[in-house]
């Protein structure tokens, strides 16, 4: 409590924050310009300057973090990320790292904005046609089987050990089989994603359904509530945090499944197809542009689920403590 109070007090450095932010930004802007002016042939002094700018930004982040005292803020990770990208750019251009090994962020961004005509169909094919339907189907199937297991203890005792075992297996390996069964188009990708997302949902839902305590269940029984009512009024709401956990894990798994399954055969569109063909042609900027799209899609999907979780499980302790 006292920690929070100390953080809220207007400290003397508050006025200086924009000014102290401007310093490292300016420093890195100059350094990036310098690197671009003489790519691959910068003097040793340059790297000393880079180290100094890095130290400056680190010290700034240190001061901000000390003032925050453990409270959450977007500022430190933002600075950390910007510095990371600036160092990446400087290392690639100034250090003359081969384009094949790692293109600089500027080249990736240029490619990203220049090739929307390729990226959009790839996005539609991989994310909207393959990952999303598979994610929804797999989650639904896992949930349905979990409910069935919940009704029958015998089924639950039989399925749970197997599900635990299978969830540790490299399920993605079934991709070539699914491509053989369902063809090159999105159907086979949906099948892979369903197989990958089914087990996390099954395990998490089963764990969530047993999260309600004995007292609450006894209370429901004393109300004369049957299995359906108890499920709707008590056990499903209690299971929601677990279900959302599975939905979030599955969001990433679905994208991975859809992209990797495309390595085994696709129509001539899709993010995985583009990645594997552009690598063959050493078009690394296009590959990275696809990865940026995948990363944005993945984190926005994840973020949307987090917001939904907050709205649906606002009562959960993890959202009430702060």
């Amino acid at each position, binding site marked *: 409590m006292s920690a929070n109070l100390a953080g809220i007090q207007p400290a003397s450095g508050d006025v200086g924050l924009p000014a102290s932010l401007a310093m490292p930004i300016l420093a890195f802007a100059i350094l990036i310009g310098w690197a671009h002016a003489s790519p691959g042939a910068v003097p040793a002094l340059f790297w000393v300057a880079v180290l100094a700018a890095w130290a400056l930004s680190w010290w700034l*982040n*240190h001061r901000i973090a000390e003032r925050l005292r453990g409270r959450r803020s977007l500022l430190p990770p933002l600075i950390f990320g910007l510095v990371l990208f600036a160092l990446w750019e400087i290392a690639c251009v100034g250090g003359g790292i081969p384009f094949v090994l790692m293109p600089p962020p500027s080249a990736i961004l240029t490619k990203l904005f220049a090739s929307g005509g390729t990226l959009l169909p790839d996005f539609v094919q991989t994310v909207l046609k393959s990952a999303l339907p598979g994610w929804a189907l797999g989650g639904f199937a896992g949930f349905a089987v979990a409910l069935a297991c919940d009704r029958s203890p015998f089924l639950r005792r039989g399925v749970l050990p197997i599900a635990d075992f299978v969830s540790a297996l490299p399920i*993605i390996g079934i991709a070539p*089989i699914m491509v*053989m069964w369902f063809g090159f188009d999105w159907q086979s990708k949906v099948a892979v994603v369903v197989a990958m997302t089914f087990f996390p949902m099954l395990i998490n839902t089963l764990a969530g359904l047993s999260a309600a305590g004995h007292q609450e269940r006894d209370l429901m029984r004393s109300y004369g509530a049957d299995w359906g009512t108890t499920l709707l009024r008590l056990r499903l709401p209690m299971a929601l945090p677990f279900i959302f956990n599975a939905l979030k894990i599955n969001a990433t798994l679905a*994208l991975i499944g859809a992209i*990797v399954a495309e390595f085994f055969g696709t129509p001539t569109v899709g993010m995985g197809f583009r990645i594997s063909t552009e690598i063959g042609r050493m078009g690394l900027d296009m590959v990275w542009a696809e990865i940026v799209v995948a990363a944005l899609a993945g984190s926005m999907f994840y973020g949307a689920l987090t917001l939904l979780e907050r709205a649906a499980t606002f009562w959960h302790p993890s959202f009430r403590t702060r």
Partner: protein
Amino acid sequence: MTNDGRLVRILPVATVLAVLLALWYGAALPMNSGLPSFPQGGTLSERFLAAWALERPVLPAPHQIVAALWTATIETPVSSPRSLVFHGTITVSSTLLGFALGAVLGIALAIGIVHSRVLAASLVPWLVASQTIPILAIAPIVVVALGAVGVTGLVPKALISMYLSFFPVAIGMVKGLTSPEPMLLDLMRTYSAGRLQTLLRLRLPAALPYLFASLKVAVAISLVGAIVGELPTGGSAGIGARLLSGSYYGQTIQIWAALFAAAIIAAILVQCVALSERLTARAMGARP
């Protein structure tokens, strides 16, 4: 009494497995009878027997996969490229290298995060964000890009495994290292223990259960990373290469055998972590 308890545990699992196996054998006929090579006519039992004995079935029967596994592991010399032991060894060695690197990196990051407020504030959101992006999609790039500058073999695949496995370890260890109660931390302070001593005597032992839980996840995901990392190398060696070449040439039994081999390897790796967890617990004085 113990026998009864074991029966209660094993009977449901055995039943579910038997049902799955029966469904598998049953599905082999409708799935395989569409093939042009499938013999026409015959009684139902003849058709079933034919469906279970095809050379390139759509769905191989379980006994065919087991037979292929037996041939590829026991009857083939280990040095042969048809031997699954040969491919498995390659995959397992890059898995283990990546797993070790990832575990060390994850533990180091967690120790840094627990002790430095800057790292906790600035790094943790990026760690979480890094896992919302489909990392495995980068696998082919890492392999090809490192190959272009002359780094080939185990290292590129191990780097992918490392990237995948450091995260569960880092997150689990942060949880574990911060799990000692304030009272215990205060006790260490009354002993005037330094940060290093608190880490070694209190935080690390307290984090061990969390560490082993994360290591089980990490070793499984590390194997996935190694297998996917073998895909873009174009079918030279490893379980992933075996999957890819199987899919190129329509060798379904080979794909299934490689999949089963991967499953067995995953199970063994997870069991090894579980065993080392039990041994560590015993060495630290835990009673069963």
